């Protein structure tokens, strides 16, 4: 029984045509049932693709790309500002870089605290902006 089922399915998959003589009555019935099933299975279901789906996907990708770019730009800006803040006392007071570095090292935890505060403000702002969007 299973072999008959399998054979008919296999032959239908290959798209073979049958002549009436090569099948028994039972096989003809089975073939008719399978042919009907194949026709149903090949009918496309009614799938509703949301309107402007590709545009929605592209806008999500664009938003992610822009966010990445913004983080990179802001990181660069932070490095530049830090460098400027380091050299400012050297320019204003005329002290040596080593002396300014020693002063900075003495107050390093304040600098770390300020940096963390900036990062916290930046990322919380970013998260809020993302949630609003």
């Amino acid at each position, binding site marked *: 029984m299973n072999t008959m*089922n*399998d054979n008919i399915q296999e032959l239908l998959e290959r798209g073979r045509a049958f002549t009436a003589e090569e099948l028994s009555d039972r096989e003809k019935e*089975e073939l008719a*049932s*399978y042919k009907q099933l194949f026709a149903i299975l090949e009918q496309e*279901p009614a799938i509703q*693709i949301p309107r402007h*789906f590709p545009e929605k*996907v592209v806008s999500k990708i664009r938003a992610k790309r822009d966010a990445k770019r913004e983080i990179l730009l802001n990181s660069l800006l932070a490095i530049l500002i830090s460098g400027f803040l380091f050299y400012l006392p050297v320019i204003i007071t005329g002290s040596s870089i080593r002396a300014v570095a020693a002063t900075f090292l003495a107050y390093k935890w304040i600098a770390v605290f300020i940096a963390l505060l900036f990062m916290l403000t930046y990322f919380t702002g970013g998260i809020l902006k993302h949630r609003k969007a």
Partner: protein
Amino acid sequence: MPDEYELVHKVLEGDLYSFNLLVKQYEKLVFTVAARLLSNKEDVEDVCQEVFIKVHRHLGKFMFQSKLSTWIAKIAYSSAINHLKKNRQYDEYPEDIDEKHFSGETPESLAIKKDKENYVAGLIAQMPVQYKTVLTLYHLNEFSYAEIEEITGYPEGTVKGYLFRARKLLKEMLEKYLNTEII
């Protein structure tokens, strides 16, 4: 419409208009796979969006060793399966599948029992995910056994076994349904 190779290269160069075209070209394939595997229709759009975001992120890894449609279908299939697993809706293949009772008479199916197509669609929805997958990929997306193996990771013999058993079950249920209808 640009060819597959040209389209992929344009997307890799950062052209989002080309990616829009790519989504348009393959959205039907992705929606067909996701809609068949996920019972919650609201999840379908989210999963499909996730699929195309993954396609965009990993397109550089596509080496043209298969058709782009096969590669995208593989991502769609694994995303849908992951979604089912995350929501504890994924069932391993039931060994007693031949004894499983597929109901053709639930209130929902009675309501949609307008025609054979809806009846068969209702039966497929009750089938194990493995059967739904192979039926969809073979009959609707016209993938070969080898391509289905690549998409799902099931060996070719298993794909064939699932497909034949699924069809046999459907044929038997359809015969019963049609006989009842005639009576």
